């Protein structure tokens, strides 16, 4: 029988492990409350800010318990989980992903739930409400939004530019400023760069600075005059430093939320980002003397001044969520003015509500909050592309920019190629995904 012993042990061990694995899976909550799974992208202080609201909600009633889980790569994971049939009840997506998810039939329609709870369009800044809607229905609700401005490190810029009033306002003024601000060591290696288009709020926004961005009259347009101007300007930075030197310089940048962030470690003199960035300055480089200005606008086009990105963090209820009604009660709770403003203040964002309270504007930790708020309400606050293939647009344009900078193609050629591919992709998308 001793021959069979190892085999029996194996089988027992296997059964033990199977039991171990099965029970270690997402366990049912031990309380008798309904547990609502909430996946969110935030960590650190931003997470703490939302957790405070979650705790407040959990304490305010006794039927529902919201469980906050920090998830990296949240859009992909939510999509995978939803298509796998096991979505979280609430997911914290970025606003620009809403349309894509709606097209894929991955989100629950919130219109009726919102109406019943008194959450209405009038309470919000129009651009943010539009980000949360698609095809006339509501699919998401805002949490913390962000507009965008240019942060400037006073210690790294020449004195004549070192204040919000004297800082360059147009692109050509900015170019002059850049030449005087770049600093190299004797061997030509870059020490300080005035600006790196790829860092901060990212390449995405450049075409909007110069005009209509990726869309024109509702049609995809990535190779228009404004796009060419935008990318030529972006390329001018790489050209000035040299492709290899730029790459080498940028490969030494540390992580966004760390003291090695290029702006915080003194490698970049300016940095375009949202209102929350002041938080990171405070955490990692409190001694920095900084101010914020609107991003420069192209010469002879004052109507394009005051451009701002419109990011929005949202809450959605994926299709197939087990506790959709309960989840919505939390969403509605977050939308209440006092909770929303507390969240936005703690995360150092502006507020998506159309009427901000005095308290919010005066006690906000970001000293430049008035600027960010103004930019969010301006006519040049552009919401992200409301198309389901937004991700593909980003990667095609990003690819085109790579090719431009490497010299594989001329800017116009690279953009034309991206345009023709995207038009074909969009046609196919409409046909196959939207069933047109």
């Amino acid at each position, binding site marked *: 029988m001793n021959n069979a012993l190892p085999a029996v042990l194996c089988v027992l061990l296997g059964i033990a492990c199977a039991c171990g694995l099965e029970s270690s899976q997402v366990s049912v909550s031990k309380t008798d409350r309904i547990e609502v799974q909430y996946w969110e992208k935030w960590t650190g202080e931003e997470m703490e800010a939302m957790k405070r609201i979650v705790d407040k909600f959990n304490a305010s009633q006794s039927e529902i318990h919201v469980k906050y889980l920090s998830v990296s790569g949240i859009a*992909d994971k939510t*999509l*995978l989980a*939803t*298509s796998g049939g096991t979505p979280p009840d609430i997911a914290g997506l970025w606003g620009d992903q809403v349309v894509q998810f709606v097209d*894929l*039939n*991955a989100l629950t329609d919130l219109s009726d739930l919102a109406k019943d709870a008194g959450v209405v369009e009038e309470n919000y800044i129009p651009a943010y409400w539009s980000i949360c809607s698609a095809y006339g229905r509501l699919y998401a609700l805002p949490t913390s939004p962000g507009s965008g401005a240019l942060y400037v490190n006073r210690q790294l810029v020449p004195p004549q530019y070192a204040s919000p009033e004297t800082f360059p306002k147009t692109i050509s003024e900015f170019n002059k400023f850049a030449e005087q601000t770049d600093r190299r060591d004797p061997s030509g290696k870059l020490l300080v760069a005035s600006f790196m288009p790829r860092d901060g709020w990212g390449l995405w926004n450049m075409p909007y600075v110069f005009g209509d961005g990726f869309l024109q009259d509702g049609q995809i347009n990535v190779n228009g005059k404004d796009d060419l101007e935008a990318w030529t300007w972006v390329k001018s930075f790489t050209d000035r430093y040299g492709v*290899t030197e730029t*790459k*080498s*310089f*940028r*490969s*030494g940048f540390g992580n966004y939320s760390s003291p090695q962030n290029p702006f915080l470690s003194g490698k970049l003199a300016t940095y375009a980002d949202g209102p929350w960035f002041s938080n990171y300055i405070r955490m990692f480089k409190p001694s920095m003397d900084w101010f914020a200005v609107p991003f420069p606008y192209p010469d002879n086009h004052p109507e394009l001044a005051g451009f701002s990105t419109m990011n929005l963090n949202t809450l959605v209820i994926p*299709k197939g969520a087990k506790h959709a009604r309960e989840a919505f009660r939390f969403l509605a709770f977050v939308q209440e003015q006092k909770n929303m403003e507390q969240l936005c203040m703690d995360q150092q964002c502006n507020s998506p509500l159309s009427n901000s309270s005095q308290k919010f504007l005066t006690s906000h930790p970001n000293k430049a909050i008035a600027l960010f708020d103004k930019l969010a309400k301006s006519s040049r606050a552009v919401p992200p592309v409301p198309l389901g293939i937004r*991700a*593909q647009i980003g*990667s095609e344009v*990003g*690819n085109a920019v*790579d*090719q431009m900078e*490497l010299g*594989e193609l001329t800017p116009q050629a690279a953009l034309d190629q991206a345009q023709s*591919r995207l038009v074909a992709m969009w046609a*196919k998308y409409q046909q*196959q*995904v939207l*069933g047109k």
Partner: protein
Amino acid sequence: MRSNRQNVIGLLFASPWILGMAIFLFYPVISSLYFSFTSYSILKPPVWIGLSNYQELMQDEIFLKALSNTLIICAASVPLTTALAICLALLLNTKRKGISLYRTLFYIPSLVPTVALAVLWLWIFNGQYGLLNEGLSKFGIKAVPWLTDPSWAKATLIMISMWGCGNAMVIYLAGLQDVPQSLYEAGELDGASAWQKTKSITLPMISPVIQFNVIMGIIGSLQTFALPFVMFPGGQPARSTYVVAMYLYDNAFLYQRMGYASAMGWVLFLATMVLSWISLRLGDRHVHYGGGA
């Protein structure tokens, strides 16, 4: 003659596999073929579109770029890895002191989980802080943009695959054990040098092993996914490291175009078959069976 009882017993013992093949292989293969003719996004039912996916693939510049990337990496890494694995096996096929330590050392890289590997190499190949550029600078070679230049990025992937040749090396080692000592002794008597012995005795005698490893290597290389996925998200820079498996994954799970992804899988299958067949045909001219008699 086999009795009925024997048939039943045989089938019973083989039943787990027969069931497994049916559920986890045949059914998915047939579904995959079906999906490849549909537009399908799992949260909506599939819609028949005929050959549309395949037609689109043939004109899809991104797919063609991914395919060429994959083929280039395969064409470079398989021969290089084979050569390295054979060299290592030859070097380790002695009774030198501490040989088992060496053997373990060369095998360890192939044990490292892909993500850990990706992180390690991202670190070593870093343009500014990387170990490799630091070492090269000691020889007066200027910093190479390993991760940010399209051609070098591919070279990086190839080099990493060579570092993981441990599996192949072990199999070659085993194969070398079976080369009869008598053949070497005969070679010695004829005054053959070490290189001549290797060329005329060793290589032909292990040629079936080489053929096996080359085909396995081709198949594996064409399907490579995890390392580029973690090291070069999106196939950056400029899609130079975008391999077919990554594009397939993106289409299936990010763009939710599962039909298109299925079609891509079948095209990859065809490419694998073609390359394996070519390798077999070419090999048969050189492979010497009947070794180890």
